[in-house]
């Protein structure tokens, strides 16, 4: 039971997300209920697992994924994962409640909840993964869904830019993380988290430790917005506020520090870890807090403050001491609580007052006293004021910063950086409270009249602020046991003694706290007015990672791309084709030149005169087609068809009856197809296009040389192969088992529908896709102006009709080739019978779904040719798209049926069935598969042919409208 709980926790958000798309578009309330119920269920399931993880227990759920590669779908929950899963689903639930009031009914709600739920599922996946590769997969999913969430209001440029930047940075980090995880997997020999956690010493001593560390840290730093990758986070503030509250408190950015803590037993404790993580954390801590002071956008201030707090957590993790880890985990929880509530409060202010610009907001306390009080308490927690949760973890942080962990300058400046960062945090927290809530209301009124929000919109803030207070006052009774479970699951026996109480006596950390609070307050008193007016932060104003990012993006995606295109590219097809052909010839020639070409002696040495005569015709036709294709298209088509027929006869001659029938019917439909297309090509005027210049001649000579070279090469290679004896191939396998296992005597057909049935399924899918593409392309077809007019022949026939008194216009065209067309109509049932015959005998004799399908399609198109589009469509509804769909489904379902009997996909089933009167009839499930192939081929072929044939009726319609308009004009003039 427990096992499936984990799977359900992860699967539920995805399933509910998909379900939310299916709701009607105006269903804000049902979607909210769905999302709320989902997150609540995830929370409840997570909480129900507490007894199992309490006391160092681990819940695992293992499913095979790609066992040959060491990939397993392993879910694993220990105390640390448990506390994160509760945080994600709990804050997720509050965010849903809040979003109900925040998201306006005009916004596409379904999309919002789909992205939100999918993101929640991915995030739960990250924390519950028990396999590193699986973790990276979920990690990348969080990048993608956060991209979609940040860009939710995609009509706004800022949202699109912010989303793109977030995706670029975090996805690059994700790729680096994947590489790092692969290195770790290589060192450990397994991707399983338990194995990796147990192999810490081996990893740290390995030569590849530093590369692995750098790659993994690249992933976690980008995700957690650590310096120098911090700049995407403020730009991500273009997201709707509930999303910001979720992404930047409990999830997304926490994934980075989560992973650092997860792999802490493996990677930490080395000088490299200490310097890199410590330095990045310290710079983020101070720089984030410094930049936060100068923000005029409320959400911007919170964003930079998030960077700063994440820096604090990273710094704690860098120390490599167990107490540092305790403080880091504790601060992750505390930060999530107060930051989520602050973001929600910011959203309320924005929502009710119409702006979140700190310069325009003032004196809001008198309008919204409750929200104001809550925001003030949360800000105080952010600043680290005693009796709030932020104070406790900050106190632990100070204590750890003072300790000497590794003797280096980073360690020496750590306490000063800690106090400086905290002092700046106090300043920006005071600024937040003071400039929004206190003071007089601004002279010009707010964009909207501010008032308190609905109770349930405020409730999540209230809940979180109460949590801050309770943890801050009685930590041992509230968070204590859970924190201990989380910490001991990471540290195991190394779990240190620590005490969670507010009062430790007069200690150095307390003094540091006092200094930070006083200095921060004094700084605000001194510089508050300046901050209010500052346009840009001094000193670091030009120090923007964002600008570097933009410059790099432009350079790579625009300038370099243009440069490469200028150097290597051409917009003209012919030079490209020439390059391609040259490269192909070179690729064939180089190995031949290197190892020499020799011919074998096997095969039929005598020259078969009849066969040679046949191909003499074939080759003349091929060269003729090549020569005529420019000016005599119809002649070229006829010559092409003759070559095809010679090919077809060759197949008969050389023991390939299946190929011969297929080639024959395909030849017919190809000819019809090209004939239909000919009508839309321009007339060729010889004078205009005759090559005259010396350059033209040179070019043609060069092309001729290439063509001759290619042809000679193919001749040499194929002759060399054909005169060698055939090596042992898999042919014997198929011949021996075609009947005993596939139940058919036509080996080629058995290969297609049975042994290699999955390939065939892929091929017919391609066929269907191509047909639909042709159809879609032609739906918006615009013929060239000079092709709109009726073809010349029809004009001559028409003028004859008009000249004769007793003939209706169009009568000659209708009677044209009357006898053949009657015969073609008569042939329709015959062709259907032929197609059915070819289909049914296919398993044992030449035939099968492909050839039968094309034959059937030829039958349909003959009707079109014989009687005209309009006549056929009045009498026959073909519905080719249905044929395609039914055929494809049938082929796929036949395969699935075999899995129901416990066999592999597309395993065929074969037996003789006794039918009354008819007797013993072979029945193989492959026949059903072939029937699917048949349906798809019919549908695809007919769809393509009809789509082209229909263009002439479209032309008629256009011409008719034209004529009507001309007549109207004439009437007006007369």
């Amino acid at each position, binding site marked *: 039971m427990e096992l499936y709980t984990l799977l359900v926790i992860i699967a539920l958000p995805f399933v509910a997300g998909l379900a939310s798309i299916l709701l009607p578009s105006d269903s804000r309330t049902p979607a909210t209920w769905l999302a709320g119920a989902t997150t609540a269920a995830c929370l409840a399931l997570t909480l129900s697992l507490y007894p199992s993880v309490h006391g160092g227990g681990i819940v695992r759920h293992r499913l095979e994924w790609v066992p040959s590669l060491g990939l397993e779908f392993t879910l694993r929950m220990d105390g640390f994962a448990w506390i994160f899963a509760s945080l994600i689903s709990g804050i997720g639930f509050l965010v849903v409640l809040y979003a109900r009031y925040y998201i306006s009914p005009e916004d596409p709600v379904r999309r919002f909840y789909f992205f939100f739920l999918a993101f929640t599922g991915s995030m739960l996946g990250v924390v519950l993964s028990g396999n590193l590769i699986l973790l990276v997969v979920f990690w990348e999913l969080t990048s993608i869904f956060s991209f979609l969430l940040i860009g939710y209001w995609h009509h706004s440029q800022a949202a699109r830019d912010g989303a793109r930047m977030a995706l670029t940075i975090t996805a690059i980090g994700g790729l680096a993380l994947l590489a790092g995880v692969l290195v770790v997997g290589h060192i450990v020999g397994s991707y399983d988290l338990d194995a990796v956690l147990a192999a810490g010493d081996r990893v740290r001593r390995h030569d590849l430790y530093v590369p692995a560390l750098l790659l993994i840290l690249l992933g976690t730093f980008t995700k957690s917005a650590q310096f120098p990758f911090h700049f995407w986070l403020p730009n991500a503030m273009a997201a709707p506020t509930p999303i910001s509250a979720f992404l930047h408190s409990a999830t997304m950015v926490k994934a980075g520090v989560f992973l650092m803590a997860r792999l802490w037993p493996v990677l930490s404790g080395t000088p490299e870890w200490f310097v890199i993580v410590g330095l990045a954390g310290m710079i983020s801590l101070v720089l984030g807090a410094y930049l936060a002071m100068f923000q005029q956008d409320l959400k911007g201030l919170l964003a930079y403050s998030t960077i700063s707090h994440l820096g604090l957590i990273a710094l704690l993790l860098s120390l490599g001491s167990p107490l540092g880890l305790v403080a880091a985990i504790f601060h992750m929880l505390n930060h999530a609580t107060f930051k989520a509530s602050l973001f929600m409060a910011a959203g309320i202010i924005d929502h009710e007052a119409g702006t979140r610009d700190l310069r325009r907001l003032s004196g809001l306390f008198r309008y919204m006293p409750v929200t104001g009080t809550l925001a003030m308490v949360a800000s105080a927690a952010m600043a680290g004021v005693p009796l709030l949760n932020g104070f406790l973890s900050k106190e632990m942080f100070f204590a750890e910063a003072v300790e000497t962990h590794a003797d280096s300058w980073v360690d020496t400046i750590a306490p000063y950086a800690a106090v400086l960062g905290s002092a700046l945090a106090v300043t920006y927290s005071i600024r937040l409270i003071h400039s929004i809530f206190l003071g007089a209301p601004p002279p010009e009124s707010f964009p909207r009249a501010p008032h308190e929000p609905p109770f349930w919109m405020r409730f999540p803030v209230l809940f979180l602020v109460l949590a801050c207070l309770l943890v801050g006052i009685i930590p041992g009774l509230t968070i204590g046991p859970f924190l201990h479970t989380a910490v001991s699951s990471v540290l195991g026996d190394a779990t240190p003694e620590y005490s969670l109480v507010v009062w430790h006596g007069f200690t150095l950390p307390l003094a540091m706290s006092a200094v930070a609070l006083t200095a921060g307050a004094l700084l605000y008193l001194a510089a508050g007015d300046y901050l209010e007016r500052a346009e840009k932060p001094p000193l670091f104003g030009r120090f923007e990672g964002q600008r570097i990012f933009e410059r790099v993006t432009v350079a790579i995606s625009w300038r370099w791309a243009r440069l490469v295109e200028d150097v290597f590219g051409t917009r003209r097809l012919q030079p490209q084709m020439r390059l391609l052909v040259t490269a192909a010839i070179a690729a064939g020639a180089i190995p031949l030149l290197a190892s020499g070409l020799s011919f074998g002696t096997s095969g039929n040495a005598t020259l078969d005169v009849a066969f040679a005569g046949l191909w003499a015709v074939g080759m003349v036709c091929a060269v003729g087609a090549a020569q005529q*294709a*420019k000016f005599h298209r119809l002649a*070229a088509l006829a010559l092409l068809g003759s*070559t095809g027929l010679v090919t077809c006869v060759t197949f008969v001659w050389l023991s390939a009856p299946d190929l011969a029938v297929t080639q024959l019917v395909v030849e017919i439909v190809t000819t019809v*197809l090209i004939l239909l297309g000919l009508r839309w090509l321009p007339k060729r005027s010889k004078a205009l296009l005759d090559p005259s210049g010396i350059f033209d001649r040179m070019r043609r000579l060069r092309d001729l040389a290439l063509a001759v070279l290619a042809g000679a090469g193919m001749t040499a290679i194929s002759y060399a192969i054909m005169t060698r004896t055939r090596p042992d191939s898999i042919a014997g396998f198929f011949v021996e088992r075609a009947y005993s296992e596939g139940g058919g005597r036509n*080996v080629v057909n058995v290969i297609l529908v049975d042994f290699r049935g999955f390939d065939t399924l892929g091929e017919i899918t391609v066929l269907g896709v191509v047909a639909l593409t042709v159809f879609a392309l032609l739906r918006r077809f615009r013929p060239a102006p000079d092709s709109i007019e009726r073809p010349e022949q029809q004009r001559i026939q028409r003028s004859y009709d008009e000249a004769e008194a007793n003939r209706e216009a169009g009568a000659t065209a209708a009677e044209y080739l009357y006898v053949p067309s009657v015969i073609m109509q008569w042939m329709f049932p015959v062709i259907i019978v032929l197609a059915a015959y070819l289909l049914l005998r296919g398993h044992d004799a030449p035939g099968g779904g492909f050839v039968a399908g094309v034959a059937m399609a030829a039958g349909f198109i003959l009707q079109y040719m014989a009687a005209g589009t309009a006549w056929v469509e009045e009498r026959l509804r073909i519905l080719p798209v249905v044929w395609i769909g039914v055929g494809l489904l049938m082929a796929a379902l036949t395969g699935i049926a075999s899995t129901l009997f416990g066999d592999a996909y597309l395993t065929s089933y074969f037996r003789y069935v006794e039918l009354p009167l008819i007797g013993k009839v072979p029945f193989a499930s492959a026949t059903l598969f072939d029937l699917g192939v048949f349906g798809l081929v019919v549908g695809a072929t007919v769809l393509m042919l009809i789509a082209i044939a229909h263009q002439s009726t479209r032309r008629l319609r256009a011409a008719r409208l034209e004529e009507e308009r001309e007549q109207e004009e004439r009437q007006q003039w007369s």
Partner: protein
Amino acid sequence: MELTLAIAIGVLTGSGVWLVLRPRTYQLVIGLSLLSYAVNLFIFSMGRLRVGAAPLLGADGTGNPSNYADPVPQALVLTAIVIGFATTALLLVVLLVSRGLTGSDHVDGRESR
């Protein structure tokens, strides 16, 4: 017989390559069709040439593999023929649409120079 077919494959390839390098879209269609004949025959010839040995088993369904032509290249070519038809259709339609949009049947959508 082998020599004949080898020369035929060469001539088909040469004609096809020549047409593929030409500027008119229709030449491209014909050229690719010729090339696909050549390629199909080439793949087919990988199974070596046999006369009167179609891979159809006798009534009892057993057979010695050495008595039959190689069925594997035949199976490959069979689907290739049908897919070849589909790509020819697609190419033709793309070219027609491009001619409708640009007013030119040059492969670049406009006359050179």
